[in-house]
């Protein structure tokens, strides 16, 4: 048992923290938001230069063969700096599908572009009524010749507006909520029959609603088994959840830090408001919540490697519950302790709150995952 980072991991942390300290303060972030697509190509290139976009890929695929802990380190750092660039969509999710399900040809076609920063991906999964159930899929992929024809609508596709390639879940057979009959397809974002409506999300990221009308793709578009890819989808989404837990921990750390700094300096009644016990206790509770979240983020990271799929799923769901509870408390109380200034767009703290809030509602909220843990019989 060991919670310390290895030498290489420590260096990785220093390197990404350093990069973001230099190029991602709050003012710079505002500029990046105004760039085309809503994030900075220059920052993305820097991430590529430092090898961060290639971390999880095997050396044979041109990456560094890093594991879950390295992704955790990166995601925490991205959470701290409120990074807008599509690391989750491209490296964690897109890369995850390619790593766990991609053929040699698919890997060769897509991974180099991810690693060098020239290509980004997006995961088109959510449907109007699917909510958090990954198996609830009405988008269809019908066989045509050797290839497939995709029809359907996907919503809130993160990085959907900018991605070069979409990874689309679609039903190849069966009924709407059947667990089998679901495939995953690589679709060029500019394919004929795709129409996108892009927009900024509440937390400053960008997403798109995307409709697919008779979109034709080749036989090489399916990742894994086109009739039975739910296990693959769940595995990759679990990794996305783990990454979101780590991102939330980073954002909570910063929220707490900012808030403590604020109440140390803000004066009322002639004293720093941090000298009031009611505020001290609230801040202590925020610390406890953040620490519990950190513990579960580490647990989720470890659980990513569990052999038993059920055990893995329960552990990660449990982590998402804890993170959801903690982030709500830390996020809300950060605003409360800042008082009026916390309500303004101008102050950084509200942006943490918004990102944290959106993390809760991504790939299953607290209630959803609590029910999953309960239905699986708990953790003990």
């Amino acid at each position: 048992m060991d919670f310390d980072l290895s030498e290489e991991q420590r260096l990785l942390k220093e390197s990404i923290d350093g990069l973001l300290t230099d190029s991602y303060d709050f003012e710079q972030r505002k500029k990046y938001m105004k760039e085309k697509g809503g994030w900075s190509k220059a920052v993305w290139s820097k991430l590529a230069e430092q090898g961060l976009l290639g971390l999880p890929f095997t050396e044979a695929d041109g990456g560094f063969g890093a594991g879950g802990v390295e992704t955790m380190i990166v995601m925490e750092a991205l959470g701290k700096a409120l990074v807008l660039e599509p690391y989750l969509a491209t490296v964690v999710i897109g890369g995850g599908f390619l790593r766990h399900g991609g053929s040699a040809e698919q890997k060769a076609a897509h991974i180099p572009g991810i690693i060098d920063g020239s290509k980004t991906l997006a995961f088109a999964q959510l449907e109007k009524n699917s909510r958090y159930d990954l198996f609830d899929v009405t988008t269809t992929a019908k066989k045509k010749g050797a290839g497939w024809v995709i029809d359907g609508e996907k919503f809130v596709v993160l990085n959907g507006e900018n991605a070069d390639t979409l990874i689309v879940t679609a039903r190849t057979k069966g009924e709407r909520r059947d667990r089998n009959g679901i495939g995953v397809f690589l679709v060029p974002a500019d394919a004929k029959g795709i129409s996108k409506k892009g927009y900024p999300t509440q937390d400053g990221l960008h997403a798109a609603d995307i409709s697919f009308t008779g979109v034709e793709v080749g036989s090489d578009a399916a990742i894994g088994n086109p009739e039975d890819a739910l296990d693959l989808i769940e595995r990759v989404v679990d990794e996305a959840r783990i990454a979101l837990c780590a991102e939330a921990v980073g954002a909570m750390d910063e929220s707490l830090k900012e808030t403590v700094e604020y109440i140390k300096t803000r004066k009322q009644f002639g004293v720093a408001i941090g000298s009031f016990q009611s505020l001290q206790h609230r801040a202590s509770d925020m610390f406890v919540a953040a620490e519990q979240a950190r513990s579960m983020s580490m647990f989720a990271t470890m659980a990513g490697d569990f052999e038993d799929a059920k055990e893995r799923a329960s552990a990660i769901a449990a982590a998402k519950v804890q993170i959801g509870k903690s982030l709500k408390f830390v996020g809300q109380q950060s605003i409360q302790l800042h008082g009026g200034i916390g309500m303004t767009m101008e102050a950084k703290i509200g942006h943490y709150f918004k990102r944290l809030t959106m993390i809760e509602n991504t790939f299953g909220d607290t209630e959803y995952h609590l029910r999953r843990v309960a239905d699986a019989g708990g953790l003990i």
Partner: protein
Amino acid sequence: MDLAFTKEEVAFREEVRAFFRDNVPPDTRRKMQEGRHLSKDEMVTWWRILNKKGWGVSHWPKEYGGTGWTSVQHYIFNEELQSYPAPQPLAFGVSMVGPVIYTFGNEAQKKQYLPRIANVDDWWCQGFSEPGSGSDLASLRTKAERKGDKWIINGQKTWTTLAQHADMIFCLCRTDPSAKKQMGISFIVFSMKSKGVTVRPIQTIDGGHEVNEVFFDNVEVPIENLIGEENKGWDYAKFLLGNERTGIARVGVSKERLRRIKELASKVESGGRPVIQDPAFRERLSACEIELKALELTQLRVVADEGKHGKGKPNPASSVLKIKGSEIQQTTTELLMEVIGPFAAPYDVHGDDGSNEAMDWTAQIAPSYFNNRKVSIYGGSNEIQRNIIAKAVLGL
């Protein structure tokens, strides 16, 4: 970063489990599962079994009978002990006064007291809190005046846990009334059989008798019973309180109780089906399990840190363990109340004699719920723990 136990640690856990299975008296285990009080004999019998095995004072230095285990081994041992369940060693002797004596006591004191603590030849109790000194412990007023080769002790202690069983007490006494609050306190030990010591029971809301008032009326104590230096008692008290870091989370206790909740909830019916099948109940149960898992991990982080960086000064993370650990213990007793529903009401008319096995367990649930309100109060109330985090961690 690696959360898995090593092969050696897993083997150690098996060894500990097997030892408990073969050696904890079954009645002792059953009573603990049912939340009952154990008799002095039952506790001492088990602790002597443990001591004979060499595990009675596991965390003491080897020269005084400790095991030399790693932090992780201590964690595993405690966790298994709590979740078996079997009584933990008497904290007042083993975790509190023992370490003070081997750290600050003289050779004669070490020889005289340590082996007797390990074998529970002496049952120790703690003379810290007073009626006017709870969270503000340093305001204590019990005084020890030096008269020839004796201390003359007068005053009153309260909340003295299991003083009714005690042979010895370690006591914070004011020895210099003119000094500032924390400065004039000394750490003195003496026999509870001394003339002038009176123990009066306090009945708690669960109907139990765990705590007492202890009165000192001109109690004469040999001068050599001072531990360490005169007027340095506050330092020793801080050392003592900071010593217990990870055990306070009581993760194993809560784990055991959650298993019991599941067992009972699959027997007791509500709405024509076992309580465990009620989705809302199951979610509350799972929410508690998740909190506990997070706490367990937080505790492991503290343990690992201790193993790497030594046990030096008190770690403020222990305040997190205390707050969350006590909240979760309380939640588990609430869940038990929920399971038992209207049958929480009957008072324990059968007593602790096990004469009505079928119903006995129900009668302990409400008392256990009432009794567990104490866990967020003792050992530095959760409000004090929040003060500690605010000051020591957040710098407020």
